C-alpha cells in the first residue's frame, strides 16, 4: 500500500477494491470481478519519475496535441502495470507469473474511469491462464488486452 508522504498534496485518485479469487474449483472461462481505477495527471507524473519515461505526451498537453493526440495519455507501461497488479491475488496464492503479454490498442486518457477485468481461460492444479483487459468507461472496445500464464510448484 502506498503511504502518503507528509506534505504531499497529491490526492491518490484510485478507487481501491479488494480482489478475491472465485471459489475453487473454477470452470473454464470464469469471469473475475473487475477493479476500477481513475488515473489522474499526478499519477502520470509519479510514474514518469519512477520509470524514467519523460515523453512529454504524458504530461504536456501541447506536446500531446502536436503528436496528434487529443491530450495527454497514460503511459502504456503504466496500463500494463495495472494489469500486473490485478494478478496480485494469484501471486499471493503462491503462483509465479511465467509469461505476460499485452497489446496496446488505443490510448488511455487520465481522468477516465477504467475497468480492469480478467477471465480465467484455463486452470489446472498448478497452472492458470488469465485473459486481461482495460476498458475506459463509455468506450466500445478494450484499450489494452493481454494474457498471463501463471504456475506454482506445490498446489495446496
Amino acid at each position, binding site marked *: 500500500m*502506498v503511504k502518503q508522504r507528509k506534505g504531499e498534496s497529491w490526492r491518490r485518485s*484510485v478507487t481501491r477494491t479488494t480482489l478475491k479469487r472465485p471459489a475453487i474449483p473454477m470452470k473454464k472461462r470464469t469471469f473475475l470481478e473487475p477493479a476500477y481505477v481513475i488515473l489522474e495527471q499526478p499519477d502520470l507524473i509519479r510514474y514518469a519519475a519512477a520509470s*524514467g*519515461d519523460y515523453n512529454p505526451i504524458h504530461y504536456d498537453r501541447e506536446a500531446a496535441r502536436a503528436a496528434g493526440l487529443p491530450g495527454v495519455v497514460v503511459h502504456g507501461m503504466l496500463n500494463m*502495470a495495472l494489469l500486473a497488479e490485478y494478478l*496480485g491475488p494469484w501471486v499471493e496464492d503462491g503462483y509465479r507469473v511465467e*509469461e*505476460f503479454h499485452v497489446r496496446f490498442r488505443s490510448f488511455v486518457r487520465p481522468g477516465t474511469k477504467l475497468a480492469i477485468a480478467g477471465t480465467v481461460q484455463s486452470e489446472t492444479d498448478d497452472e492458470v491462464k488469465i485473459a486481461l483487459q482495460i476498458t475506459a468507461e463509455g468506450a466500445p472496445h478494450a484499450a489494452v488486452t493481454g494474457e498471463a500464464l501463471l504456475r506454482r510448484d506445490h498446489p495446496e
Partner: protein
Amino acid sequence: MTAIAPPLGQPSAPRTYVIDPEWVRSFRRAIPALAKKSDSQGDREIPLTFPFVLQPNPIPGLRMPDSGLVHGTQRFRYVSPLRIGETVTVVAEVSGYKERGGTAFVTLTTRAIHADGTDAFEAESLLLYPAGDEASSQVTPDP
C-alpha cells in the same frame, strides 16, 4: 520515403544495473494498488513490469524517430526472479522488422542475465512508426 531497415540480430553493448531497493520502492509506489495486500508481501515483490525500466544500450545502426513512435505490444517471459541488490546485465537486439502500409514494425528483444550468467527474463517490444521517419534521429526507443 524510403525506410531504413534496422540491422537484425546486431546486439547492443551489454548494460549492467544494480537492482537498487529505493529504485524498486519508488517504482512500486508509482503503481496504484488495486487490492489491499500485506506490507511484507508488497516489500518483497519486484513489480512485473519493473524489468522494462532496465533499458538496454543503443543498438548499433538502429534508427527510430523521436516522435510518432507507438508501443504496440509488450511481452515478458520471466525465467527466474530479479532480486533486490543483485546485478543484472541486459542486451537487446532487433529480432523482427517489417513494413506494411507505410508503417514500420520493429520488434526489439531484450534479454537479462543474472551475475552468474543464468537467464532472468526476456522482454519483447513491438514498436511502430511511419516508415521513412527514422532518418530524423538515432535514439533508443522511448519506453
